[in-house]
């Protein structure tokens, strides 16, 4: 069941906020876009297509998303970088339980010190979105990236 235009706009606003928080912060507000019980995975397309479960980031709760955020901010030694998300082709389908199955395309460009911008990752967001207290939130998201090979390290969530 396709979404009515108000719902579609609400879904797009969720992704806008998602990109804004990851790219410009505050990063610690990003986990609030997810349900307390959630499932966020960044997984190479090779694994996804073959049914192999290994994800390079796997968070099974909002708390685990917070743990990732805090590690990025305080424990992982990394070069400073800017990320810029482009999220397009957002399509939502209504579920019988009132939630939404959503597919979107993404492109993340990374800027490292003294380097030209490079494509860090390209792929799809396969999400399940629910309404919670009037807001839409992600109950689950698979970030399926098309190239199994990534340029050096993925530090921030995609």
């Amino acid at each position, binding site marked *: 069941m396709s979404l009515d235009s108000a719902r579609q706009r609400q879904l797009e606003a969720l992704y806008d906020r998602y990109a804004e928080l990851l790219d410009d912060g505050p990063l610690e507000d990003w986990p609030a876009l997810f349900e307390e019980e959630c499932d966020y995975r960044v997984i*190479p397309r*090779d694994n996804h297509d073959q049914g*192999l479960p290994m994800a390079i*980031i*796997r*968070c099974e709760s909002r708390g685990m998303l*917070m743990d*990732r955020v805090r590690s990025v901010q305080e424990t992982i030694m990394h070069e400073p970088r800017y990320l810029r998300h482009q999220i397009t082709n957002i399509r939502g389908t209504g579920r019988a339980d009132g939630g939404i199955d959503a597919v979107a395309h993404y492109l993340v460009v990374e800027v490292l010190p003294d380097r030209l911008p490079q494509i860090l990752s390209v792929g799809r967001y396969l999400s399940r979105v629910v309404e919670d207290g009037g807001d839409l939130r992600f109950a689950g998201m698979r970030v399926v990236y098309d190239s199994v090979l990534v340029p050096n390290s993925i*530090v921030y969530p995609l």
Partner: protein
Amino acid sequence: MENKPAVTWPTNGVDQVPYGIYTDPALFEQEMHRIFEGDGWAYVGLEAEIPEAGDYLVTLIGRRSVVIARDQQGDIHGFVNRCAHRGVKLCRQNRGNTRFFVCPYHQWSYDAQGNLRGVPFIKGVKGKGGMPEDFERAEHNLPKLAITRQNGVIFASFAAEPPAFEAYLGETNFRYFNRVFDGRPLQLLGYSRQLIPGNWKLMFENIKDPYHASLLHVFLVTFGLFRADQDSQVQMDDSGAHALLISRRGEQKKSDATTDMANLREDFELQDRRLLDPVKEFPDDATVVMQTIWPNLIVQQQSNTLALRQIRPRHAGAFELAWTFFGYADDDEEMTRRRLRQGNLMSAAGLVSADDSEVIKLAQDGISEYPDHTGVVQMGGRGTENENHMVTETAVRAFYAHYRKVMGL
């Protein structure tokens, strides 16, 4: 004519390393021949990746693409991924199942042993064309690799007569290899690959260097997974080519060993403790064993995350790190979930391993601007002996003792 490397070693020892070995393109070409096509056994895959007759995988030894295939009898063979006719890459996918490998160009076909089985129009068409009278199919089989299998792990070699695998690893390294690969069938969990802008040897150095682990890896130390004050060993084989770092977990608190680490996060408590929920699974009390096997493999057991990391050099300034994550076929669901969760620490986005890929880039950045200078490798002395502590670079020195011999440097 081959370009001559412009690198000389500054001393007779291995406590100093010339930076040219990370940057010189001619030396890199020599390394590919002498090290990756030399006498050693290179890791190429797991049997669990090609369980059925006809299954194959494509991987790299150094920069050479090779096919590892299981034939109809269940035997495993290795051959170069390059048609004997015009040099075209035979396999365009990294995994698959086939009876015959058919070149897309002129459809020469090879069996799972790499033997040439079919050449279209070999006798010509209507009496015209065709291969010369003296063309022998058997003379155009694909160059083959030696293959050895050790408890589910496949190694290959370009050498005509490589040593027995057990003798190659040496007694201690062989014993520890069989600690993780104990004969139980393995379960493939997936892959992750990174292109790291650094010289391939920096990856080996990193895993052979326990000195950095308690300093760089704030996450590891904060949660007590690796600390300089724990009972530990660094053990090499006689050649110095292979090494083991063996250690134990400690606690999340300050001690002598952490006072040198200014940024320990003593107040960092996980909001979801399931992220770190290690259980003992090996008979001994080591909780981390990192093994480096010349010329291209790291075997990782950190708590319950098990992975093979294959080093695939690209050029002097870059290598690919190809991870294969696995567990055991008899793992219950809970154990598999635990391994997958702990995978957050060790992957292309690892809370721990990202420190290493990031620092390797910075090392290459620094070195490549000053290739005529020399690095110091003197923590724990100048020798290459086994040690029972973590404050040492002995395994890095042992690696370079072997490297100098192989490279004639």
